[in-house]
């Protein structure tokens, strides 16, 4: 039960891909990657959840915080590869309308 995170920098966007379970135990690893990007605010951020098998409110909280920071700098947060299960969480918490989810044109 662990999480792997890879970061790729493209022109004006960081693409962060995760695999594993995103919960209270693994969240600090994602925070560590996101924190400097959130503070810097020079890039858009795309988070790829294609290989995330589990997520709960801990993950939602990180996305909300990231979205707030990025918007301060006029940058966007996109979340891609969201499974039906995880999409349901965004829906019932009302977050689906607040962020760009599964909108990427570059679906792999």
């Amino acid at each position, binding site marked *: *039960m662990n999480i792997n995170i890879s970061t790729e920098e493209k022109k004006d966007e960081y693409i962060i891909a995760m695999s594993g*379970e995103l*919960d*209270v*135990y693994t969240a600090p690893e994602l925070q560590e990657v996101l924190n400097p990007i959130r503070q810097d605010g020079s890039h858009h951020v795309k988070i790829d959840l294609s290989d995330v098998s*589990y997520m*709960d*409110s*801990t993950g*939602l*909280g990180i996305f909300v915080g990231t979205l707030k920071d990025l918007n301060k700098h006029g940058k966007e947060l996109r979340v891609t590869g969201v499974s039906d*299960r995880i999409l349901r*969480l965004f829906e*019932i*918490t009302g977050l689906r309308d607040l962020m760009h989810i599964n909108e990427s044109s570059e679906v792999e």
Partner: protein
Amino acid sequence: MSHQYDYIEMKFPSSAEYVGLIRLTLSGIFSRVGATYDQIEDAKIAVSEAVTNAVKHAYNEDEDGNILVGFAVYSDKIEIIVSDKGQSFNYEEIKSELGPYNEDDNVNYLREGGLGLFLIDTLMDEIVVRKDPGVTISMTKYIDESQVHSDGETISNR
């Protein structure tokens, strides 16, 4: 004496690393009684939220504590109890002490706890929160009996 449910109880250190293990255990217990994929996934999130809450708020960082997770497995439902004070408890006693769902109480709680309790409330069929001593959350998921074969074989085994 016959009883209407099987009761399974586990005690974990109050540490984030065990939340995944609790989910695995839950999966096993729910699969055994023929719960659907969605029922299992809903309950996994709910129990994780309760345990996450306990890990974050029940003990100071320099304090060692335990989290108690109990499963009461009925023929048509599973009740999960998460208690952030690690003493073993008598299930019947706790059950009788848990009052009805008090909406005002839970709204206050929600403000402190963020989305966690909201998700538990949304994903489970019944939820009761008791705050003294410690926090005990009891949540119930009904298992659709039509999902269970007469011999107890589960859908997931087909």
